[in-house]
């Protein structure tokens, strides 16, 4: 399947896994993502979440945008594009990266796969072809949107390595985090990277659309004993909040999309200073980011440990005397693993320090009425959950 004819005149596209996902999608609850429909929940988000944290979950991430970057200047181009330095990147490595506009505001984030010096692949949540092509003017690279020609699954959870191992993916347990390689599964040669959006041990499987059913079936072939589940985007949202990962156009507005200039965010405001390498000779947005670094940020995305058990969805944050709003919550949930009420949000600079106390104004719906709750919150690190197995080598089998 190599459909590229996304059109408002026809229904959303189906991914190469659709025949398989729809069998399992009891709820028939589909989500629109980049012209495709993918399951939002199969049965219940909590159950799928539980699978990801305890056995493994299989998530169809085919609609993700994928771009191939090829040519003599491919590495140079990547270095100009992103805020990190890929001078020392080796083939079969992956980096998580941000790219910024001239004012240092984040355009998007994504993962960059290095096949060799002259051949990279960028996976991102938003469409970026135009941005990449304009960045590439004057560089000897060819950028191609290959989104539709690669089928992708996220396979996340403590049993993910074990199952791949049982499928005879040779030496999979020694694949390091942020690395990828070719593996043969069920007679299909596919690419597996040790990456993911769950903060857990997990992999992403990249294959040709024609291999999709084979790969899907393989993953479920030991289900008599292991009970892995197909997981929807709602479950993915839960694990990513626990892991403290950001989503562009949810936790920040992409610079290319924002209508109001003060809604854009720099890496420093996102708490991703470690991803900005100001020693690099040049990258898009460098000047502005140097300025911001010297000046300091006015607000910052932080984690919140919220009192009580009612998720602070969309809450406005206040100072302790409740007379000044000092921020807003971008994502919030009850974390089943941590047994606590967590949230991510922006706070003004006076409240950025870990341990600061703020109040969240929660409107909790209770049968057609809202209960207003003033919940005490403590500013904490965004990474609510850190699991040893996530980065362990050899991985758990």
């Amino acid at each position, binding site marked *: 399947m190599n459909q590229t004819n996304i059109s408002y005149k026809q229904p959303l596209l189906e991914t190469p896994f659709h025949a398989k996902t729809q069998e399992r999608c009891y709820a028939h609850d589909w989500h629109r993502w980049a012209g495709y429909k993918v399951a939002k929940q199969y049965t219940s988000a909590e159950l799928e979440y539980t699978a990801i944290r305890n056995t493994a979950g299989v998530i169809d991430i085919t609609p993700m945008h994928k771009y191939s970057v090829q040519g003599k200047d491919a590495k140079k181009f990547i270095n100009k594009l992103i805020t990190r330095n890929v001078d020392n990147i080796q083939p079969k490595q992956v980096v998580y990266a941000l790219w910024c*506009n*001239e004012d240092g505001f984040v355009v998007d984030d994504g993962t960059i796969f290095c096949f060799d010096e002259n051949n990279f692949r960028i996976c991102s949540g938003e469409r970026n072809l135009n941005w990449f092509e304009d960045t590439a003017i*004057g560089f000897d690279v060819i950028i191609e949107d290959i989104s539709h020609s690669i089928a992708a699954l996220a396979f996340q959870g403590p049993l993910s390595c074990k199952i791949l191992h049982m499928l005879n993916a040779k030496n999979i347990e020694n694949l390091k985090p942020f690395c990828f390689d070719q593996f043969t599964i069920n007679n299909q040669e596919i690419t597996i990277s040790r990456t993911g959006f769950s903060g857990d041990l997990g992999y992403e499987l990249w294959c040709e659309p024609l291999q999709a059913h084979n790969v899907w079936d393989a993953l479920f072939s030991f289900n008599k004993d292991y009970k892995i589940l197909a997981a929807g985007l709602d479950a993915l949202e839960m694990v990513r909040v626990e892991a403290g990962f950001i989503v562009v156009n949810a936790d920040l507005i992409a610079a290319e999309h924002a209508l109001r200039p003060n809604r854009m965010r720099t890496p420093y405001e996102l708490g991703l200073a470690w991803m900005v390498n100001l020693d690099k000779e040049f990258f*898009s947005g460098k000047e502005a980011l140097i300025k911001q670094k010297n000046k300091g940020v006015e607000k910052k995305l932080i984690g919140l440990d919220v009192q009580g058990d009612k998720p602070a969805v969309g809450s406005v944050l206040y100072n302790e005397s409740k007379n000044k709003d000092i921020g807003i919550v971008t994502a919030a949930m009850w974390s089943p693993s941590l047994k606590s009420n967590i949230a991510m949000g922006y706070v003004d600079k006076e409240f950025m320090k870990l341990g600061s106390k703020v109040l969240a104004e929660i409107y909790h719906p209770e049968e057609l009425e809202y209960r207003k709750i003033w919940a005490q919150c403590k500013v904490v690190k965004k990474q609510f959950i850190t699991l040893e197995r996530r980065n362990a080598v050899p991985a758990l089998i």
Partner: protein
Amino acid sequence: MSKYDAIIIGGGHNGLVCASYLSKKGYKILILEKNENLGGLVHCASSLKGFSSKILNDLKINLPTLNYKSYVVALHSDQQHTILQENDKNNINFIQSSANEENQKKFSSLINKYKLFASTLSNFMYEVPPRLKSGNSEDTWKLIKMGWKIRKLGKTNMREFLRIVGLNIADELEDNLSDDTLMGLLAHESILGSNLGPRSPGSILSLLYRQAMQNGLFTSEQYDFHQLIPSLEKNCINQGVDIKINASVKKIITTNNQATGVILKNEEKIDAGIIISNADPKTTYFDLLGTEPLDTDFIRRAKNIRTKGNIAKLSITLKDKPIIKNIEKEKMNAKFIYAPGINYIERSFNASKYDKYNENLCFEFHHCANVIAANIYYVPYVKNTTHAKESLIQQSINSLKPFISNLEIENAELLTPNEIEEKYHVTGGHWHHGDLEIDQMLMMRPFYGSAQYATPIKNLYLCSAGTHPGGGITGINGRNAAKKIMGDKK
């Protein structure tokens, strides 16, 4: 230490002016010219209207002035031509016209209205335009001053100015005139050199701007145009400027976001503290500098400057002096224009809009002895292909034929916009290095982030027609750039 304080890339008039101002203040300058001759696009011009007298005074250059007022002839296919002349007080005299008196009067009053507005605009010409969003009090003050200059027109005039400033010339003319020839004449003056048609928004502003730069619309030649470049060159040499011809720059060298020198095509490396590019902005950024040290948004804006040229240069050598039908011999010292009406020009503009063959060529020409120098439009710049040159020459000659009774041609040469691009290294073969429209003017010229003669690269400056105040042969760009550089180095 490098031998030179500054290198100027391109020996056009702006480069020479910039060098003159800087060397006067003791800067040691090297001018690098790619071609054999200095002057660049000046050689494409046919007259010298509006070279800044302020600059000539500053530099103490004495250019011989021409003390006659030439005629303007709007040709008509029925050979009933309209002839007018601007008198000493810059008023229009109709020598001959088939338009009725009311039309003539309204034509004059339109010109006077534009003259008033143009004089407001001309206040901005010699200023480095303010930066937007800089938060600098000097910039804010400059903006206020600009606003005040417009406010000073008075309530009625300011309203009228703001009404027409974004308007197209065709609407304005149709509201006021009924004579096709007069309308065509003014529409011609509005769109010449920019990629606009009479019905394109902003064509009035383009007219006002030309008027502001040239100090009048139909003014005759003020200076002997052949003397300009030699005089500027002599002045430069006297002030110790080194000039290197046939020296094509391959690359501007930068280290740590700072320009430090240039590499020539022959791999020779020359260092200098300041690099000033008199090449157009696109050539400067994309070819000479390279996109590596530039932000994506910046590249996008640079890429999007409108630089599509659409005028071909025709030079015809006749056996004898040309004779124009129905024009007396003493009125042959004239600029002849064939743009017989708004609709005719607009249809001609279709060639540029749709990149197709032009069936309705418009042109202006003048003659010098038995050579006719003509500007033919719209002959749009084409990408990835070439013009059918022979047939274009033939078509141009056919268009001239009805008006010239002794058209015995000895030689005809045509420069298409593509050839102008190649010969003078001007992107798109555009006269002004970019359309003179409201979004490419003042602090937006050539584009946001690159205005005020500076670039994101430290010590790299622009002084070409691509900067404020724009194209035409005025020399003001070079002067303003020099002032800016001297200001920065203080």
